[in-house]
């Protein structure tokens, strides 16, 4: 059976060949990186090489890269490292930031109709209370791909004694991500969004103190206990080293072509964040009243894998909190589809999408009914 065309790279990306080779090679070795004998030292070497690659890629010091089990853990670690600071988050953060922050009484900054955080509102939240704050603002939204003014927010936050954490899980590998250019105090990155295996991520800091979540052996300079996931970390390093932002330009070309063809075929299509800077690979749109759920199913039957909002919401599908935060109503949010592309997508994938889309969206009378 031919596999469906994969257009859901923001949910997870296929493992890159370089990363797969690194993982496999490390899986064939034995060794706990904390052991002092040769096996242990080899495992540690693999891990430290990956750490250097990641540090160089995001412009951080090697010792400030803390490997975690993924983006969610890294975000959890960043928020708890704020200690007694009050939390301020944007309304479109990933659930791993938004849910615990709101549960802890965080203030929530609004976004505009394009899905960009309202810096004036953010500033007023930072200034409204003399207690020091921790601001959490993502670099690129996972549903709309819309980029956030992190550098401006960080400058503003620092001017008022606040720290800024940036969730860059969706950004690394797709656009340039540089800790010092962003001015962020900490950065979350995720392996499986950029072609490393699932189960590895990192919190990268500028040296700001981290309050460990997992306690135990002194791994990761006592900032994250637990035997390190050496094969996945080695794969992460290989995937980071293979990042090719020129290839992202090609992905952007495909995305733009799809967007133009969708809008040209049906002028009622609304593309979220179309007027602002977005990730090169992400297209989030609504095309009328059919629920996203129905459309995703229909596309899956037609051999195309996309998603409605984010993949993380286990259990029932609910309207995207990102789209409602942009001022759309719940009904509209329930129709939002996310197409997210990657390096291995081709023009013929775009053709296939449009062909399927036209069949699904065409009036029933004109459809060729398949035999029962």
């Amino acid at each position, binding site marked *: 059976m031919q596999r469906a065309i994969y257009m859901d790279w923001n949910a997870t990306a296929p493992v890159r060949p370089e990363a797969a080779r690194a993982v496999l090679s490390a899986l064939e070795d034995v060794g706990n990186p904390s052991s002092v004998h040769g096996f*242990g030292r080899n495992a540690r070497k693999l891990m430290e090489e990956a750490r250097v690659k990641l540090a160089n890629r995001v412009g951080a010091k090697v010792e400030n890269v803390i490997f975690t089990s993924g*983006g969610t853990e890294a975000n959890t670690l960043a928020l708890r490292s704020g200690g007694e600071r009050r939390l301020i988050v944007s309304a479109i953060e990933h659930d791993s930031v938004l849910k615990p922050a709101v549960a802890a009484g965080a203030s929530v900054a609004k976004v505009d109709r394009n899905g960009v955080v309202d810096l004036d509102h953010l500033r007023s939240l930072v200034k409204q209370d003399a207690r020091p704050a921790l601001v959490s603002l993502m670099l690129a939204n996972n549903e709309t791909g819309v980029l956030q003014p992190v550098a401006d927010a960080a400058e503003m936050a620092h001017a008022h004694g606040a720290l800024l954490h940036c969730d860059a899980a969706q950004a690394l590998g797709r656009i340039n991500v540089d800790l010092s250019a962003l001015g962020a105090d900490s950065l979350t990155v995720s392996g499986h969004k950029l072609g490393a295996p699932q189960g590895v991520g990192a919190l990268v800091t500028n040296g700001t103190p981290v309050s460990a*979540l997992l306690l135990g052996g002194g791994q990761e300079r006592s900032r994250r206990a637990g035997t390190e*996931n050496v094969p996945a970390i080695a794969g992460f390093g290989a995937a980071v080293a293979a990042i090719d932002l020129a290839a992202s330009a090609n992905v952007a070309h495909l995305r733009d072509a799809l967007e133009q063809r969708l809008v040209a075929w049906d002028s009622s299509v609304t593309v979220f964040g179309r007027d602002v800077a977005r990730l090169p690979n992400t297209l989030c749109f609504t095309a009328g009243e059919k629920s996203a759920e129905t459309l995703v199913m229909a596309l899956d039957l037609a051999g195309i894998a996309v998603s409605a909002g984010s993949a*993380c919401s286990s259990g029932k599908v609910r309207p995207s909190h990102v789209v409602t935060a942009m001022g759309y109503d719940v009904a509209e949010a329930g129709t939002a589809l996310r197409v997210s592309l990657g390096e291995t997508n081709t023009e013929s994938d775009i053709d296939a999408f449009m062909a399927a889309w036209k069949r699904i969206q065409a009036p029933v009378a004109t459809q060729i009914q398949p035999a029962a």
Partner: protein
Amino acid sequence: MNSMNNSSPILENRPKLPVYLDYQATTPCDPRVVQAMLPYFTEKFGNPHSRNHSYGWESEEAVEKARAQIAALIGADEKEIIFTSGATESNNLAIKGVAHFQKDRKNHIITVVTEHKCVLDSCRHLELEGFKVTYLPVKQDGLLDLEVLKAAITDQTAIVSVMAVNNEIGVIQPIAEIGAICRERGVVFHTDAAQAAGKIPLDVNAMKIDLMSISGHKIYGPKGIGALYVRRKPRVRMEAMIHGGGQERGFRSGTLPTPLCVGLGEACAIAQKEMGSEAERLKSLRDRLFSGLKAKLPDIYLNGDLDQRIPGNLNISFAYVEGEGLMMGIKELAVSSGSACTSASLEPSYVLRALGVEEELAHTSLRLGLGRFSTEQDVDYAIEHIVQAVARLREMSPLWEMAQEGIDIKSIEWAEH
């Protein structure tokens, strides 16, 4: 060169060097496990939480099959298995999770001085938050005295955490008896089974276990994955540590790493199938190693009980040698002087000290871990090299010389520096 070596009949029986004797630190990923995982890296790469397309479904199906394999190993229901990033996370989640949930009702935790560092550190952290923690001693054989446990439980006790098998000395705690005591007193019982699962039979119902931590890389599965068994009837309540998408029944958010879940499941299935015969094989290797050393070296001491012990572990102190020198003398053997987590430190093992092992002997201990890929050749090679190294170090030792002359070293009053 290599092919020549390999074809030489004289060298054929030589083990692969260095010989890996550190199976309690980590185990090689079994090639069968690697094979099971491979398709889920590249071809079947979906996010198991993607509900709306086939890539997600096939990943989810693989994760659920793995969950069932883990459950089967410990007699649990698959709904009671939560995936984590490893046993350290499982232990942190179990202890802090139950304590935090109970904090307004119960504020007392009981554990044992010989637990893994991640259990002890979680408990110390809870003490800073205001919880009371009782650290139970162990007997000289490394085992818990059940009467001491019974006496420590109060109506304020929220959780008892006792490891099933110790990572340094391999002793097996009386888990079923502890489970019965905890159930009778209405206390949640957590066991860190990182070193036990797949090595000895475990049954969460027969042993009345409420929470059990499992590690992937200790049972020939991959690193970066573990599990926590969480009893549903009677339900164990605990607070999550990692929040977000609400995966794993809300106990643990984050995208599940499908290949690693598959690897842990396969590792459990293999362990379940082969545990009986493997235990016998390892026990005979272990006995060969211990008797081989004892036959050629006087004044060596086994730390921890020999019978209540997993078959793949020995922990031996060699009197009259110096620890660092011993490690340097057996460079062709990958062994550890204590747990991997603390192996960079020169402190003597807190586990051995808890057994009452004298400081000098605690400094000269070796943990010899055998496992699935250990061979008789490995064992014989280890005997030969440890005996040589110890004999050479003792020849240079004035203490050894005095001991041979019949001087009781403890009776000497050393001059103060």
